[in-house]
């Protein structure tokens, strides 16, 4: 099998006994993308990555990377791939610099080139002050950065990052996300898996929403949001409403869902201009007082909610 796509996964099926982990999964990723795989825990993201890397056996389907079929001994393909695992994969007995140098040596033979790449990876991940420290002395955030440095040190064409920000403080997370975008600017194609929708929304140029081993939707953030009917979500606090007024609000144009609890009104409206103005005008016309007002555009969580009927973090 050969494909013009940078990465092509077709009809991938993976079963663990009775459990179907990947159910005819299809993905195509183009060179230069930051491609997000978004789904809740257990949705099949890591299984898909492990199959892609030829670590896991699969029952059906095909995988090609750089136009070539991927096998466990496809060393020509592997030399251009960098992986940042979900679990930190470094040697406890070696220092930060030694770890990065070791993993770089599995890809790069030339000593001078290796030294330069290791220095760049250390600088890139901001580990300059910790090069002589052993991993167990590092904080969670620094350890994740070391994990990333070991995965990207050889400057691969394709970088696969499997939830690299799990259990990372916000400062380190921002640093990591900025770094991913910089890697992409330097020419690497990136596959990024996460169940944090904000991260995926922030950095990914295209996203596949995955659940129960199936791709439910693929597209840019905007394309995904356009797939659903939610346009705005308006929340109004400190408001007293009679049932008649509630019914009247429900009847406003584009309103398709409404909840009212403990003086908080939440309205979901379809895509249309001036939704917020229309609601506020209605309240003014009926002389209704209210507290704070929020208006939110749809999020990927709304997309996931509408497609699957459940929250992304359920």
């Amino acid at each position: 099998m050969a494909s013009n796509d940078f990465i092509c996964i077709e009809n991938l099926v993976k079963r663990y006994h009775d459990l179907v982990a990947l159910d005819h999964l299809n993905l195509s990723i183009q060179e230069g993308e930051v491609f997000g795989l978004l789904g809740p825990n257990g949705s099949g993201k890591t299984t898909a990555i492990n199959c892609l890397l030829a670590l896991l056996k699969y029952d059906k389907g095909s995988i090609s990377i750089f136009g070539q079929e991927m096998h466990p001994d496809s060393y020509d393909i592997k030399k251009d791939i960098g992986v940042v695992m979900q679990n930190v994969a470094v040697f406890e007995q070696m220092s930060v610099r030694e770890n990065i140098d070791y993993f770089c040596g599995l890809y790069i033979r030339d000593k001078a080139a290796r030294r330069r790449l290791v220095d760049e990876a250390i600088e890139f991940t901001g580990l300059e002050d910790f090069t002589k420290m052993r991993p167990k002395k590092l904080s969670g955030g620094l350890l994740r950065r070391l994990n990333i440095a070991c995965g990207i040190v050889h400057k691969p064409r394709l970088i696969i990052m499997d939830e690299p920000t799990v259990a990372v403080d916000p400062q380190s997370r921002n640093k990591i996300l900025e770094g991913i975008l910089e890697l992409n600017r330097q020419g690497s194609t990136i596959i990024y898996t996460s169940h944090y929708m904000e991260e995926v929304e922030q950095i990914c140029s295209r996203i596949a929403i995955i659940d129960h081993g199936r791709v439910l939707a693929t597209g840019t953030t905007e394309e995904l949001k356009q797939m659903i009917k939610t346009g705005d979500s308006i929340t109004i606090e400190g408001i007293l409403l009679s049932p008649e007024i509630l019914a009247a609000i429900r009847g406003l144009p584009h309103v398709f869902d409404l909840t009212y609890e403990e003086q908080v009104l939440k309205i979901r409206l379809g895509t249309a201009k001036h939704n917020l103005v229309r609601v506020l005008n209605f309240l003014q016309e009926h002389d209704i007082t209210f507290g704070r007002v929020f208006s939110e555009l749809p999020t990927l969580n709304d997309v996931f909610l509408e497609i699957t009927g459940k929250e992304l973090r359920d």
Partner: protein
Amino acid sequence: MLHLFKYRFMQTMRDFSVMFWALAFPLILGTLFYLSFGSLGIESTGDSSWDTVKVAVIRDGSSSENHKAFEKFLEQMDGEILDIQDISDESKALDALTDEKILGIFYVKETPSLTVSKNGIHESILTSVLETYNRNAAIFREIAMTHPDRLPDAAAAMEDYRQTTAEVSLGGKSMNPNSQYFFALVAYACLSGAFLGVKSSFDSQANLTALGARRSITPTHKLKLILVDLMVLCMIHFVNILVLCLYVTHVLGISLGDNPGALLLVDLMGSMIGICLGIAIGSIARLSFGMKMGFTVLFTLFPGFLAGLMFGNTKNIIEQNCPVINRINPAAVLSDAFYCMGVYYDMERFTRCLVILAFMSILLLGIAFLSIRRERYDSI
């Protein structure tokens, strides 16, 4: 290659838990052996201060030539190997045997016999004494039938037992009865290299560790990773075993032979079989982490036990009843190599031991490579 070699060496040397089992534990065990055996001839690698074995001799009252010959034979042993107690009544002798005041009863009768109450090194010696007499008696009978004219010469030659059976081995060394424990200890130490091997193979398997996964997706060939691990670990463990041997010989004063070249060769082959055993166990993908560690303990301690690590006579009992086990048990083969080198000076048998160890190492390495070659896992 040098890069991988350097970092694997560094990583292993800094892994204190693994180095403890491979180096410190055998040293501690050797020290405990030394302290436990106390003065039981431990200091002697040549003429030992061997304790005689207390026995009773029961006579049936006859005065035939056979009776006299056996009685004289036992008297010659008295003070040398045996300590004949002044007990002439059979029931008293049996009581003394039950109470372990004596370790055996020799019966002087037409067909001499021996009664012992348990198995052990002393009982084995008593059995050997009786067998020696029976063998000599058979030779006499043979000569009497075939060359009766030469009987006086034969009798003269065999009159003094010590003239015909000097207490030296073929190698010219007396056997310290406790040396076998130290041979088994070094053999066990060699096999304990399996802990190094099994740990390293975890780092190559994606279904066991994140490190394994990371190393599996690099362009470095798996065979290369295994060979680097093998070389580094063999080198480290070889030094471990040399340290143990130096400790046993120079600190504890136990002789492991006086052929340094042969000792180095056995240590090298021993290190290799231990590492290969560990790599093979670690590479069998279907086993879980816990099962692999369990099998490693089993495959190091049990062969050590069969080679006489816990009970010195085990290897001899196996040799008498099922010698094939001693041929396929790497610890027994290693122990045998030490015997050949330090006691027997049997270089033919020594070479056979090394060939067996080399064959086993290649076999184990082949199993390891076939197990992980092109491996994709059912689950990670």
